[in-house]
């Protein structure tokens, strides 16, 4: 059984987080007002609970559920098993899954903020970079 690793992530914008997960191929994300249990790769109920859940079938054949638990201050704690920490790096060919997720979420948050302010926003991907242009 692969233990879960808890990593506090700093952002509060759940829409940006879900959009970033979608960017990385996770289109099916359960959203729960009250946290629910995660399941391990053998279908075993784990002690960890989360408000945002990607079920293991959407992650990988030998994976556990991935979760994001909402903290009292509105930030989220990522719950990713030790196995999946390595698996996701390999799957996404990136140095660190959470780092990329946070960068993508930050990009979405910036875009949302600019749009709410009535600015014109263009976003494009160049290789491993996101380019956001905000103009009046």
């Amino acid at each position, binding site marked *: 059984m692969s233990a879960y690793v808890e990593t506090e992530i700093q*952002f509060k914008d759940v829409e940006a987080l879900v959009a970033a997960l979608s960017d990385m191929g996770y289109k099916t994300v359960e959203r729960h007002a009250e946290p629910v249990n995660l399941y391990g790769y053998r279908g075993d109920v784990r002690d960890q609970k989360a408000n945002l859940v990607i079920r293991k079938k959407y992650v990988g054949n030998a994976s556990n559920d991935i979760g994001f638990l909402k903290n009292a201050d509105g930030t989220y704690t990522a719950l990713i098993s030790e196995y999946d920490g390595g698996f996701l790096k390999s799957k996404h060919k*990136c140095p660190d899954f959470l780092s990329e997720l946070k*960068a*993508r979420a930050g990009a979405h948050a*910036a875009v949302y*903020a600019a749009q*709410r302010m009535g600015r014109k926003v263009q976003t494009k991907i160049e290789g491993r*970079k996101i380019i956001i242009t*905000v103009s009046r």
Partner: protein
Amino acid sequence: MTQQIKIEIDLDTGEAKLEADGYADQSCAIDMGPLNKALGIVKKHVSKKGKDQNVLRQQRT
């Protein structure tokens, strides 16, 4: 007043580089706080108007 900003985010390093009207202005790591950093960039460089600042304060809560 700044007319255009360009934010370049490196997905491998988490580094965000900024250009304001074509001038490189700052480089900051967004790894630890992408939301606040990203909003901070927009807040600082997109508008200096009080109204817009209020919108940003609401979004940051």
